[in-house]
């Protein structure tokens, strides 16, 4: 479909990604899920196209495209393989972006350029066993001892955790100050005292890595601080703000994928001798799904375009987009999955995987409940 404000460049880019996804990713996606390993072979192809830095300036190793293009990228990838898409989204929105916004020139040179080029993989270590929705409840500590930061703590549910080369993370310099005590840092894989931990066995997104991170008297140089001391909360709140649109579009991509399969299926299958697409109950599911997906699509690309037009923040629009798209996607995937009957309960069709994959979009990067609080605060104040 043509969104009212897509430029010809956007449409051409979308076509390019779509072709790639169809050719390289669609059939692979079942294997990626089965193996449960980081899909290096696919990521390498994506990196070669410069897509791991699609929306960063060329001077920083990126392709110099806009946010809308990045969102298009995530959608088209997600339609074929949500696991690959979330890996990209975490890398771009959660690792590259905070370094781009808050990093010094040295940090951008050292970290952002290789990340944007895809030479290194990025990750964002925010969540902890006791700091989920309450992301500000960070228990990891950072102590400045002489010229070094000493980091201690544990992170959980970190996308790309075991494969990331560069990890942006939060730790508290002063827990009595609560959110105002948090600072953001950058750590590299292989640093003494830093180790990725156990990988999670998940409901969905099984081709993506979600793991623990452990810091034990990990020593970092002063220049590993990202942004100013005690401003880590601000860094990650902004980062999450931006990340919301990418998670929302991920959900949208999955939903669109489910709809595409559903449309094909109802044309080719019958129940009681009558083609499925002729039944009203099927028509209702398909039309409701298409309508809700269209609405989600507008919310998402609206937020992306606002950003491209220089909006200082898209807190409300981004949260609305993520909230709506993720809930729509779960609903759509569930309903369309039901049409498949017993063809949906095995891996014969990817519908069951779409449902398992999309459920996380209502939880990760801020649950739907948190999104509702964010939105209501914008409207009603605190």
């Amino acid at each position: 479909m043509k969104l009212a404000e897509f430029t010809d460049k956007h449409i051409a880019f979308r076509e390019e990604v779509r072709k790639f996804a169809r050719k390289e990713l669609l059939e692979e996606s079942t294997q990626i899920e089965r193996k449960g390993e980081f899909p290096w072979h696919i990521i390498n192809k994506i990196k070669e196209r410069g897509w791991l830095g699609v929306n960063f300036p060329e001077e920083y190793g990126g392709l110099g495209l806009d946010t809308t293009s990045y969102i298009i990228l995530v959608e088209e990838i997600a339609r074929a393989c949500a696991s690959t898409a979330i890996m990209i989204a975490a890398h771009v929105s959660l690792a590259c972006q905070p370094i781009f916004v808050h990093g010094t020139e040295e940090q951008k040179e050292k970290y952002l350029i290789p990340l944007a080029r895809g030479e290194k993989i990025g990750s964002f270590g925010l969540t902890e066993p006791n700091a989920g929705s309450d992301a500000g409840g960070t228990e990891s500590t950072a102590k400045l001892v002489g010229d070094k930061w000493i980091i201690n703590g544990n992170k959980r549910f970190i996308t790309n955790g075991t494969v990331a080369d560069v990890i942006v993370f939060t730790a508290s310099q002063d827990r009595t100050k609560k959110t105002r005590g948090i600072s953001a840092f950058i750590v590299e894989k292989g640093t003494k005292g830093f180790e990725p931990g156990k990988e999670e066995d998940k409901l969905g997104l099984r081709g993506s890595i979600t793991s623990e991170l452990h810091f034990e008297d990990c020593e970092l140089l002063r220049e590993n601080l990202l942004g100013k001391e005690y401003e880590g909360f601000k860094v990650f709140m902004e980062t999450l703000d931006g990340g919301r649109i990418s998670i929302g579009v991920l959900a949208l991509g999955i939903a669109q994928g489910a709809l595409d399969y559903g449309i094909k299926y109802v044309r080719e299958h019958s129940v009681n001798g009558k083609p499925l697409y002729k039944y009203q109950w099927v028509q209702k599911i398909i039309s409701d799904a298409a309508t809700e997906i269209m609405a989600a699509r507008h919310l998402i690309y609206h937020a992306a375009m606002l950003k491209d037009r220089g909006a200082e923040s898209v807190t409300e629009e981004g949260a609305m987009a993520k909230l709506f798209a993720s809930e729509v996607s779960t609903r759509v995937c569930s309903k369309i999955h039901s049409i498949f009957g017993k063809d949906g309960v095995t891996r014969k069709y990817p519908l069951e995987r779409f449902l398992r994959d999309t459920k996380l979009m209502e939880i990760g990067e801020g649950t739907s409940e948190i999104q509702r609080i964010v939105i209501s605060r914008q409207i009603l104040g605190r």
Partner: protein
Amino acid sequence: MDWMGLKEEHKLLRQDIKRFAETELAPQVSETDKKGEPLIASMKKLAEIGGLGILISEEFGGAGMDLLSLVITLEELAKVSPSFALSVAIHNLVGDTILSYGSTELKKEFLSSLSTGKIIGGMAVDTMLHPVASDGKRERLIVNGTFSDIFGFSMEKEEKKQFVVLKSDKRLKEEKEMMGMKSSGICSFKPNEKEIIERNTFTIDSPDNFFAKMRVLFAGVACGISLASFGHARSYSKERYQFGRPIAEFGMVRIMLAEMASKANASEMLVYQASQESDILDREIASIFAEENSLYVTDKGVQIYGGYGYIKDYPLEMFFRDAKVLEIFSGSVDYRKVLVGELLTS
């Protein structure tokens, strides 16, 4: 829920099955679900307390109990392992079908062995409500197929619903990548007209009754799934602290829990009532209601657990998958609504 229709025997049965589920099944569920392994030994153990011949008359070694008793059994089992509950439902249904419609020879041959768990029964659960491809070929899904000794399936022949009982053989292909109900030993099978010999086949006189009964049993499983998801979520919300307090104190969490409780309890009542009455419409309505609501409740169960609901360390994601697969066995809920609408207006 405490319901006036429950007799003392039902309450005692519930306690027995609950104890069985907690001691026998609970320690095994997580690992066996991950690996997709059936709990065959546990089925044999359940037979020892009469759980495999609930509807079979005492004449044939069964417990001679009513449909509500079987529903309660399935509900309690499903609270711990929906897969196991599904297996038990199907095994009981095979015996009940033979009892209700089969020849004297078949009853003599199979019923007491089924009741004692000497043999395990499997059955195809797909119905005419399932989509077929344009070529019309239909592959059947057999529950308990990987470990059953005999299995049954229904076929249309000369406009009559025939039920065929066969010895399990290697034509039953294991479905290794099930979305849910992973421990129910599900297989696919392509029936061949030639092997249906008269001896093994009988007519189901009232197919609508047959399917309605099957759906009530599945609805019982759905109730167990809903009640368990709700129960876990409620406990967790009291233990999980964020922002300095239990998440149970947050309005949005309370709303979800209230909705889950309402839907789970209402489902249970409808299903119990439908088990007592033999009204087909009541059973179809109860089945749709319980299953559709189990989708909602399991979804919120995962949601309340947040990231922890998405990992296999906790059972919420299993309930989510199992509820979805269960819905499919009876045929898509939305299609069944159309059929109920037809029943309501004909």
